[in-house]
């Protein structure tokens, strides 16, 4: 995959200029977080009383809880200076050129009418996501699939939201989750009815508006029995966040026999603290798969979790983390086996270079009674130079004896023999290195849908070339 010149230009300029959308803000809260602000926020959104009370309760919990005592260095975050709520007057317009290839290809798949396509392709200067979004919604509505922003979801399906919101990641789970519970805004709400298979990945990008690129997104996905859905968060386009804190919460309920995949291909700008709580509850024979690509950001702390609550439930987390200069990726996975014959797999591939630090932090817990449970963890780290660092902190808690747990980790550098081999076939050194790095990431890459895999590969190549700082 060769990068085309335009993409390279756009991406490098974006970073060098510190590009940001010109956004007018209708309302910008004062800095810092107060109870009044939380209440105002809820009122402004016209939320039901129970949600306002939920937020206020969360705020109280947030104040009482200590910061996490593991992971990266959170001390530089100036909590009192963050804008906790921003709402734009206009939707952030994007030109057709800004739309990543992956999205453009998808338009064809969802059957955007010819006329609209032409309109978007030529005459229309501003790309309005609402047009695309409208087409997609019609498609899904026919199957009974609900795909809305979280705010709209709460407004249109309050009972459904109330039933599940906060049940997988409760308010007191950790301080950042409490914060999110108090000031959440934006995110996705998805409900897939029994037996329905959504053939196309649902993407947050389709709902582009400033809130989507916001800091405290809350996503809730409910996959009813036997259903199948794939959700893709973010896209490879560089995500600049004026607020430097991204504390999202994702809750997923996988009901009996349902299959859910959640793919994140995100490339946060260098100033962002990306602290996310992601957890799925998997019922009997259900399958959950987290595909997590962590590039960019100053500090990422993310440990997608599967609670395997029903017999034969299966959980997988495949993650790629790349830490460059001044970056710390503290990522991993958690698998909790509550029921018998549950299986889990964690594959973590990390790369650190230019003084970056990549940390794998994981937990596998197999409870008493989870007979026949099996878990396999593979974490491989590639350290590209002598200035960079890699850590592995796994915890495996086994409370049942009729189980199998296997864990392996390897740390290495790019092999000299491999480099020599490829160079002797005519490849310049940096290309040979990039090829080897790609090969290293391949086991996870091949699980990412093709369009996104191509984007991910481009990003990795860019990072390797060092054109991004």
């Amino acid at each position, binding site marked *: 995959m060769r990068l085309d010149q335009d993409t390279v230009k756009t991406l490098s300029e974006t970073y060098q200029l510190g590009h940001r959308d010109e956004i007018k803000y209708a309302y910008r809260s004062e800095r810092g977080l107060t109870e009044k602000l939380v209440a105002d926020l809820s009122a402004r959104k016209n939320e039901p009383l129970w949600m306002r009370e939920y937020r206020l309760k969360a705020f109280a919990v947030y104040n009482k809880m200590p910061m996490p005592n593991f992971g990266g260095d959170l001390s530089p975050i100036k909590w009192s200076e963050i804008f906790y709520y921003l709402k734009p007057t206009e939707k952030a317009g994007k030109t057709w050129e800004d739309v990543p290839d992956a999205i453009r290809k998808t338009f064809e798949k969802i059957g955007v009418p010819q006329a609209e396509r032409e309109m978007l392709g030529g005459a229309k200067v501003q790309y309005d996501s609402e047009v695309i979004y409208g087409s997609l919604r019609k498609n899904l509505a026919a199957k009974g699939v609900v795909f809305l922003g979280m705010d709209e979801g709460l407004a249109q399906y309050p009972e459904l939201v109330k039933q599940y919101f906060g049940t997988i990641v409760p308010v007191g789970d950790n301080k950042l989750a409490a914060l999110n519970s108090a000031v959440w805004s934006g995110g996705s709400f998805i409900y897939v009815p029994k037996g329905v298979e959504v053939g196309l990945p649902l993407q947050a990008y389709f709902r582009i508006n400033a809130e989507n690129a916001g800091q405290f997104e809350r996503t809730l996905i409910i996959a009813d029995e036997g259903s199948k859905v794939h959700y893709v968060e973010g896209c490879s386009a560089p995500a600049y966040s004026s607020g430097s804190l991204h504390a999202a919460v994702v809750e997923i309920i996988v009901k009996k026999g349902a299959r859910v995949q959640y793919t994140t291909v995100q490339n946060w700008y260098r100033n962002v603290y990306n602290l996310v709580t992601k957890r799925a509850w998997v019922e009997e024979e259900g399958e959950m798969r987290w595909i997590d690509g962590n590039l960019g950001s100053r500090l990422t702390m993310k440990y997608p979790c599967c609670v395997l609550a029903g017999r034969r439930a299966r959980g997988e987390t495949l993650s790629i983390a790349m830490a460059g200069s001044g970056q710390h990726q503290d990522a991993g996975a958690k698998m909790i086996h509550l029921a018998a014959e549950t299986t889990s797999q964690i594959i973590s591939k990390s790369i650190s270079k230019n003084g970056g630090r990549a940390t794998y932090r994981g937990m596998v817990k197999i409870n008493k009674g989870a007979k026949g449970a099996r878990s396999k963890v593979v974490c491989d780290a590639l350290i590209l130079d*002598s200035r960079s660092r890699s850590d592995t902190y796994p915890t495996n808690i*086994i409370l049942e004896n009729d189980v199998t747990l296997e864990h392996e980790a390897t740390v290495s550098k790019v092999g000299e023999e491999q480099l020599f081999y490829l160079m002797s076939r005519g490849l310049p050194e940096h290309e040979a290195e990039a090829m080897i790095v790609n090969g290293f990431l391949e086991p996870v890459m091949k699980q990412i849908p093709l369009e996104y895999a191509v984007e991910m590969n481009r990003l990795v190549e860019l990072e390797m070339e060092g054109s991004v700082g």
Partner: protein
Amino acid sequence: MKKQAVVIMAEPGKKELVVNFDKKGGEEEVLALILADQPGDYYLKILVDHKVGNTFGRVMVRGVAKNGARVRVEGMIKIDKGANGVDDFLEMRLLLLDDKSQAVAEPKLEIETNEVKASHAATVGKIDEEQVFYLTSRGITGKEAERLIVDGFLNQVVDKIEDRKVASKVGRIRL
């Protein structure tokens, strides 16, 4: 010249071992056995710290637990900045012999340079049923087959002890 540290835990409690590599060319192997057959907590903590390069380390831990024993093994390989040319491998394998035993396995790594060969492996589980079938199909009773397998499992560590005196003290494990 390779040094060996042999650790045997046969009583509940905590045992901590630190191996510091502060001279180039150092070679050290840690062999640990945990025979946990009493109710209680057995905690083995091992830290191997490569402060300088061109050092060679190996850690091999084998443990069996039964009768309500709770075994926790924490093994960390640390390779400091500038410690190039380190070769280290940590392995911990725990067998849970009955439904009253539990284990926590924490194999950790902190690597600050890239000219290294470092890896670790951990397994926790019960006796492999295929191994039991194989041996019983040769006429050996189920209990005897399990005994052979557990002894063999632990003896993999014992067989590596180079000092004759220590080896004979540990003896061929007979559980």
